[in-house]
């Protein structure tokens, strides 16, 4: 019988799930993911977790509760750092300990530390450490990791090119299967694992794109007609539809086109974030600030929405800095939406509608100074 390993659908699930899934399945495990976030999960999480934590961490507790009776072990690696010289967040570093001390009757937790602060080579070390829980065959682990990395890169590329990232995460298992197939084909063709640098590959997202119209990053010029809105926020806030009350879907319905922080080229972010006076030491901070500086050079973005969760320490600084920099340098509309477990959907709708209306109004009527008694809206 296969060992059942549980992955809670929260936090870095929305970053690394393809990697984890392929890697663990290659090792011969059965991967079980908790249900999609719903009211029950959120409430349970809020009950389990300390009050001071941010919403995503509370939701994560709910997902653990959801998995607890169904799996043989839980996969909650300790993410200290995922990029050189940067940390993730203290809560990520202490997550396995938080979980362990908030629940009783937990299955075994796989809490290998992932720390790439000093060197990127530590990634494979962590992978081997995880693999050694289940097999002694190091070569097998190495191969599984290599394969998983290929699929992960393929997946991220697809995410960059697609206009509905939240939908990809909703059906992530299908997408991963497709990426896997594609990797398989490429492997057979070239005989080696694929590498990055394929950003311009038109057909990165096999079969899935056709039903949604082509709206790649460079494809369509939104110009004055379709406002393009940039969403900045942690992956687990942007792509969890329940947590953010389907913000991407709502924006689309309002007739806008969205891009998220994950669709900006990593190289560009890296270069731009160097403009900061002091380098940020948070993985997300660098990414967000790089994006903000990048936006200053771009003219095709009509508005920026920053989705932050209440109580997020990193957001509190990054969001403030981002706002200051944008307001100082450019007249792009900027709004901060704070979400917590009490957020009402109506309030969010109103703000989004007002924001989009304002952008559209700017595009049409900004140069229109109405004469006395005449409405700016031409009926």
């Amino acid at each position, binding site marked *: 019988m296969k060992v059942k390993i549980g992955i809670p659908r929260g936090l870095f699930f929305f970053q690394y799930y393809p990697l984890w899934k392929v890697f663990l399945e290659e090792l011969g495990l059965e991967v079980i993911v908790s249900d999609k976030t719903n009211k029950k999960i959120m409430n349970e999480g809020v009950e389990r*977790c*300390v009050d*001071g*934590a*941010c919403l995503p*961490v509370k939701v994560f507790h709910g997902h653990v509760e959801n998995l607890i009776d169904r799996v043989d072990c839980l996969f909650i690696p*300790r993410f*200290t750092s995922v990029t050189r*010289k*940067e*940390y*993730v*967040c*203290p*809560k990520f*570093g*202490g*997550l396995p*300990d*938080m979980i362990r*001390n*908030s629940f009783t009757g937990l299955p075994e937790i796989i*809490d290998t*530390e992932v720390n790439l602060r000093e060197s990127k080579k530590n990634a494979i070390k962590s992978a081997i450490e995880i693999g050694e829980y289940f097999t002694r065959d190091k070569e097998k682990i190495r191969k599984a990791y290599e394969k998983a990395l290929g699929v992960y890169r393929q997946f991220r590329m697809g995410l960059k090119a697609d206009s509905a990232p939240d939908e990809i995460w909703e059906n992530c298992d299908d997408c991963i299967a497709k990426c896997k197939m594609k990797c398989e084909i490429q492997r057979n063709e070239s005989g080696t694992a694929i590498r990055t640098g394929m950003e311009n590959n038109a057909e990165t997202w096999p079969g899935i794109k056709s039903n949604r119209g082509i709206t790649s990053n460079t494809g369509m010029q939104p110009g004055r007609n379709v406002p393009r809105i940039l969403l900045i926020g942690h992956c687990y806030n942007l792509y969890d539809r329940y947590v953010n009350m389907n913000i991407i879907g709502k924006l689309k319905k309002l007739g806008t086109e969205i891009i998220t922080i994950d669709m900006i080229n990593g190289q560009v972010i890296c270069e731009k974030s160097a403009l*900061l*006076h*002091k380098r*940020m*030491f*948070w993985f997300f901070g660098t990414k967000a600030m790089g994006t903000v500086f990048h936006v200053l050079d771009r003219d095709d973005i009509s508005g920026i929405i920053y989705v*932050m969760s*209440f*109580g*997020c*320490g*990193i*957001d*509190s*600084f990054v*969001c*403030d*800095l981002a706002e*200051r920099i944008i307001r100082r340098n450019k007249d792009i509309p900027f709004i901060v939406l*704070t979400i917590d477990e009490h957020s009402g959907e109506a309030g969010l709708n109103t703000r989004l509608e007002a924001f989009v209306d304002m952008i559209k109004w700017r595009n049409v009527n900004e140069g229109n100074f109405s004469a006395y008694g005449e409405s700016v809206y031409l009926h």
Partner: protein
Amino acid sequence: MKVTFPHMGNLYICIKALLDDLGVDYIIPPFASKKTLELGTRHVPECACLPLKITIGTLIEAHDLGADTVLMAGGCGPCRFGYYCEMYREILNDLGLNIEVITLEPPRGHIREYIGQIGRLTGSFNLYKVLKAIKNTTQIAIMVDELERQACRIRPRELVKGSVNKIYTDFQKKVLEAEGSREIKAMIRDTARKLDEVKIDEKANPLRVGIVGEIYTTIDFFTNFNIQARLGSMGVETHRYVTISEWITEHIIKNGLKLPRKMDFAKAAKPYLGKMIGGHAVETVGNSILYARKGFDGVIQIYPLTCMPEIVAESILPAVERDFNIPILTLIIDEMTGEAGYLTRIEAFIDLLYRRREKGSIYGKYGKYNGRYILSGN
């Protein structure tokens, strides 16, 4: 150039000594007040932690007194403290205040870098002078912390209530008039002597409570409503491992020179929190365990709202509480904290500790006792 710096408890005494010895012109900002907090809260993002709000308020007040340079420690994460210097720069600049921020970044293995940063302050560079100033500052930090511990030890035992507080606050005010590390040291010794002369109840056996938590809120007496003095007046002896001198010696000097650090708290915390996650989370968990082992009656954790490392620690502390049978109270402070509610919780906690001690002494060695509790009357 007129240098200023944020307040943190008795830190101003150490920095005063440093700047006096280096011959730098400086302004000590006024002690934090409600107005300071209001100023800070107005200009700082709402979710930022309380220390940022208070220190920004302090710096604005110092600017009004004529300061034009801020001296600030840096850091490289993951705690938000490491980015405070940048937030100062951004917020103060956006306010239109003409203030330069000088950041003392922790040296990564190069102590020369650090000395160079201090040298930049003085204009001319004299290695001997700088090293001597650093040595004296460190000594003063250690002496001040020793003085504070002494006060906390004597306060619950004093026969005339308020005598320690009088001597101690007198010192805190008078030290502003002293000049140079030599005078400050003399004043500290003098105060220590005065404290020794306070008449104490030799037989007293006060409750002992350990203070753990985020460094700023535990050390800064304005922020935590002077909790250690208040507990002392209630007849409770307090102890705190995290101090300014410890921060200077362990974090800056030993870390900079890559010397082995005192790690007994990390060893104690290992089964609960295996890795350093920034801030003082490991210290909080580890020190709580050390207090429990030393037979303290209770532990109080204090941290500012949204402090990331302490949230992790808070969620682990119930396990420590359970395993070591020691009550732990968590107090979260932000700009909305009301003093009355805060004190009520502390008083209730102390009552609980008294009752536990009494129960322990009755049940203690001799099994079950069928009498009544004296305090609670049942």
